[in-house]
């Protein structure tokens, strides 16, 4: 995880330099926007990590491995995709939960299917899509997307076995 930390801090510093060279308020605005998001989601994240802690302590590893483990095949992909639809909250909640399931013995294929499913089919974002885009657009976009997490998970299992 230290590579990721270094990478992100390098990125943040680089972008901070670009913002500074603009000579306007961009640097201060960027820091302010980032800290504002952090403040708004801090409580959510603390609770999310409490949940993650409990899931990790209580994790029925046998259950996770049985349903979405490396040998769970197509059934595991379908279950993982369905979990992705209903995973709660923003990335600060969903990503730690998915990481916990991965540590508890879920397979690479089902985990990638779950991430893909949550990103493009999550029912929470459909709540935003419907009022803005109408039901026909939402039905086409969501309906066509249903096959994609299975394809991603299947591809991962086939390529990385």
């Amino acid at each position: 995880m230290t590579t990721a930390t270094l990478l992100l801090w390098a990125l943040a510093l680089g972008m901070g330099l670009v913002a500074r060279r603009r000579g306007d308020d961009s640097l201060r605005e960027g820091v302010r926007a980032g800290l504002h998001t952090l403040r708004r989601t801090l409580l959510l994240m603390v609770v999310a990590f409490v949940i993650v802690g409990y899931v990790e302590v209580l994790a029925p590893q046998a259950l996770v491995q049985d349903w979405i483990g490396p040998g769970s095949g197509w059934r595991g992909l379908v279950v993982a995709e369905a979990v992705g639809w209903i995973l709660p909250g923003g990335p600060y909640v969903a990503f730690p939960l998915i990481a916990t399931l991965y540590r508890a013995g879920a397979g690479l294929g089902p985990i990638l299917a779950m991430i893909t499913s949550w990103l493009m089919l999550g029912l929470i974002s459909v709540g935003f899509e419907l009022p803005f885009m109408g039901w026909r657009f939402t039905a086409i976009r969501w309906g066509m997307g249903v096959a994609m997490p299975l394809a991603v998970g299947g591809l991962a299992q086939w390529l990385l076995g």
Partner: protein
Amino acid sequence: MLPRSHRVDATLLALLCVALALAGLAWRQGGMERVQEGLERGGALLLWVAPLLLAAFLVAGFVQVLVSPHWVERWLGAGSGWRGILLACIGGALIPGGPYAYYPVAAVLLRSGASLGVLVAFVVAKNLYSGLRIPLEVALLGPRLTLLRLMLTLWIPPLMGFLAELLFGARVQAIRKAMGP
């Protein structure tokens, strides 16, 4: 639609209920000791990713300031065919903000004559490539899973845009009508 602050409150409340239920489960399994174990485990994990999260939020803030939505809109509105779909994919990756920020942009584009394929590619690209979410994904899932996920989903937005245009592109008027006034 609920305002943003209410949505967060509802999410927080739901999560609190889940946390409490899990704590109850832990208590039944092993008393206060087990309850404390879960809390300590969660706290340790949060401390472990805290420096990553701070950097991720700073990156998100800078993208928000440095990329203007008007710029993205100009490049998306003009295109059609494969060029439009590929531009939509890039635009979806670059446009900052949550669903309350990009769905209004997408709706304006669809109403003002952009094709169905362009909009499907735009929304799916935002979902899958969003430059703002990737730092968080790296922080919370690790670089290996994130890289694999990106590589394996790279083909989805252009393909879905192309297929949507091919299958339903002719009915774009009915789709616009379903958007309401």
